[in-house]
């Protein structure tokens, strides 16, 4: 209980670290020590937070002496602390990788002195977005991480990065404006922006207003999460950034959008009013994304498209609004953050070793660098969902939940999910066959590095080490999938129930409006939902 009072530190520590790193701007090694040390401390703290809510508690911290319906609250529950831990593990690995790259390159391409403070601010923004219990504070969290990401995206200011940065900044600003408009509308309609209070007051509005606000929030978050019709910006902007930056963006930023969608769907607008459109969108995201991936020849762009595609799985789990579906989605988010980031880190290594990230120019890497091949192979199979790995378990959970739901649309999505999984395997196998398996001479435009005899351009140990660490963490998610699934299902149960969240923020005396009371059509729905979850047990 007491431990949750430390939760503001998850945001404050990185910000303080950023300030410190900025002061040490001329001392590169001191900067590295500070930022890695601060992130490790944050990770430790977040692990403690996760342990404190492991069995399903929800605690909240009031900031600044204003009581909950007015002031800002931070809420620690299973979902938010799990996301915190996974995101910080990933950010720490990427930070170590980036320092390795900076040291090896003599800090030319990426001005590391700016990189460290900005990176820590990004982590602070992500933590803030995960922890906050206030809608406007969520907006502020988004802005912190977005502003930091603008700087990281255009690091070095080369032509392609500026071009990609323009698209990214404009799209992000537009989505933020949409989010702000939604907040203003919600405040105008209810007079509050604390999420727990909103959960009660939104239910009192008429259905039309509710749907309008609901759709506005989902569109704003949909742009950030790169859900299909709104995902066009992602493959254009991510691949040009430096490898570690792309890796952390791919892992974290879209997942913050998914996190916000989950909170909207479960806490603010429970019930299944928009489930059918969400499912359709999820299906389109999966299929269109993966078809895009098949057309690419650049590994980074290919991975960006698989990233879009796999967001569809999470939206699918969310749209089922059952404990099994949401639990599998939570597990899938944790798995996907890790795997997608490790793949982008490996691509950075491939680029270093093979001189390019285009599969038309690569070949024979498996022979040149077997370790690299292994580091690519494990997360790649994990992403495609090959049986022993966590990707398979997450997808299996989603598909089972879909079959349990049993509606024709859910079954279509199950089929779509399987097809997407196979197509992912095809896309990944294409990379494997061309970059790793064939002879360098067979490449269309082989890079000269590949034909040079001897071990040229040996990969820096720090970079390989941090990538390997993240790959091992991804495998650990498979090994400890049992307890992890337990927590994911527990968090899904708590989120769908809502009362623990609302009581922890507003006190136990508040009456939580049951979902069924919200509108008449859902009266019939809820018992059926209950029966389904009972069947699942």
């Amino acid at each position, binding site marked *: 209980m007491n431990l949750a009072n430390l939760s503001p530190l998850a945001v404050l520590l990185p910000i303080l670290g950023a300030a410190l790193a900025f002061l040490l701007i001329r001392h590169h090694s001191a900067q590295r020590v500070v930022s890695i040390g601060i992130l490790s401390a944050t990770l430790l703290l977040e692990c403690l937070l996760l342990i404190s809510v492991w069995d399903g508690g929800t605690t909240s911290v009031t900031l600044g002496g204003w009581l909950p319906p007015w002031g800002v609250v931070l809420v620690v529950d299973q979902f938010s602390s799990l996301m915190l831990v996974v995101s910080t593990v990933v950010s720490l690995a990427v930070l170590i990788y980036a320092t390795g790259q900076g040291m090896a390159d003599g800090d030319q391409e990426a001005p590391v002195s700016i990189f460290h403070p900005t990176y820590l601010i990004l982590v602070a923004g992500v933590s803030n977005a995960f922890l906050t219990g206030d809608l406007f504070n969520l907006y502020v969290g988004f802005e912190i991480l977005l502003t930091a990401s603008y700087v990281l995206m255009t690091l070095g200011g080369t*032509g392609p990065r500026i071009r990609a940065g323009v698209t990214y900044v404009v799209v992000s600003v537009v989505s933020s404006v949409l989010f702000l408009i939604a907040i203003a509308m919600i405040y105008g309609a209810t007079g509050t922006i604390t999420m727990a209070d909103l959960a009660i007051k939104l239910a009192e509005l008429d259905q039309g207003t509710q749907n309008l606000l609901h759709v506005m929030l989902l569109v704003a978050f949909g742009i950030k999460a790169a859900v299909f019709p709104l995902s066009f910006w992602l493959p254009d902007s991510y691949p040009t950034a430096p490898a570690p930056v792309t890796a952390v963006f791919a892992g974290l930023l879209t997942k913050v959008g998914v996190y916000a969608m989950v909170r909207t769907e479960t806490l603010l607008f429970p019930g299944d009013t928009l489930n059918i459109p969400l499912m359709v969108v999820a299906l389109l995201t999966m299929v269109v994304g993966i078809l895009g991936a098949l057309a690419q020849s650049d590994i980074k762009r290919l991975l960006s498209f698989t990233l879009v595609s796999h967001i569809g799985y999470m939206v699918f789990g969310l749209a089922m609004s059952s404990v099994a579906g949401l639990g599998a989605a939570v597990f899938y988010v944790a798995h996907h953050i890790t795997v997608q980031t490790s793949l982008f880190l490996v691509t950075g290594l491939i680029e270093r070793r093979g001189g390019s990230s285009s599969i038309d120019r690569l070949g024979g890497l498996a022979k040149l660098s077997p370790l690299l091949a292994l580091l690519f192979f494990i997360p790649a199979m994990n992403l495609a969902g090959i049986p022993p790995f966590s990707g398979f378990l997450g997808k299996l959970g989603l598909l089972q939940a879909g079959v349990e739901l049993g509606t024709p649309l859910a079954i279509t999505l199950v089929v779509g999910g399987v097809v997407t999984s196979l197509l992912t395997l095809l896309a990944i196998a294409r990379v494997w066959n061309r970059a790793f398996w064939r002879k360098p001479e067979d490449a269309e435009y082989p890079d000269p590095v590949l034909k040079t005899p001897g071990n040229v351009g040996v990969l820096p140990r720090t970079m390989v080490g941090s990538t390997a660490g993240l790959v091992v963490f991804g495998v650990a998610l498979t090994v400890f999938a049992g307890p992890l699934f337990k927590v994911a299902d527990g968090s899904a149960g708590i989120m769908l129930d809502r009362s623990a969240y609302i009581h922890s923020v507003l006190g136990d005396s508040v009456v939580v409006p049951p979902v069924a009371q919200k509108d008449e059509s859902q009266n019939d729905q809820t018992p059926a939902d209950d029966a389904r979850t009972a069947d699942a047990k």
Partner: protein
Amino acid sequence: MSINLTLLIVMGVLYACGIYLILERSLTRVLLGLMLLANATNILILSTGGYAGLAPLFSKETNPETYSDPLPQALILTSIVISFAVTAFMLGIIYRTWVLARQDEIQDDLEDVRVAKTPSFDAEDDAIVPLETSEFAVTPASSADREKPDATETPNKATTQEGGSA
């Protein structure tokens, strides 16, 4: 909650102009559009606070109904600061684009253009491979295939560098 009609009309006009401007290809106009959108949203937040009232400083004699709502103003201050930072950053980017490319226009993604131009015919997958009837191959077909002009294009790296230095 009373609503100020002037504010609403101003807000609508700002949104309309902002949306028109962000659809332009010139970066400066896009930036102006984003600023108008941000300001229109600030007015929207202000109007959610209801009628203008007394400054929200607590005194015992004042009827709570006569205060104006302080929360929207706090939100607006935050959003002004944020849009200020983003505007400054956008100006930096626009200047950088001008320095690099001497133009103020959004450029197409090179890789997108390349993928769009790629013919649906893929030499490796779709070429008609001469049916091998004998057990022993006479000519290695692979090297001849690769020289096909329609399937080849200038390598990636070259185009990227060209774009960067242009």
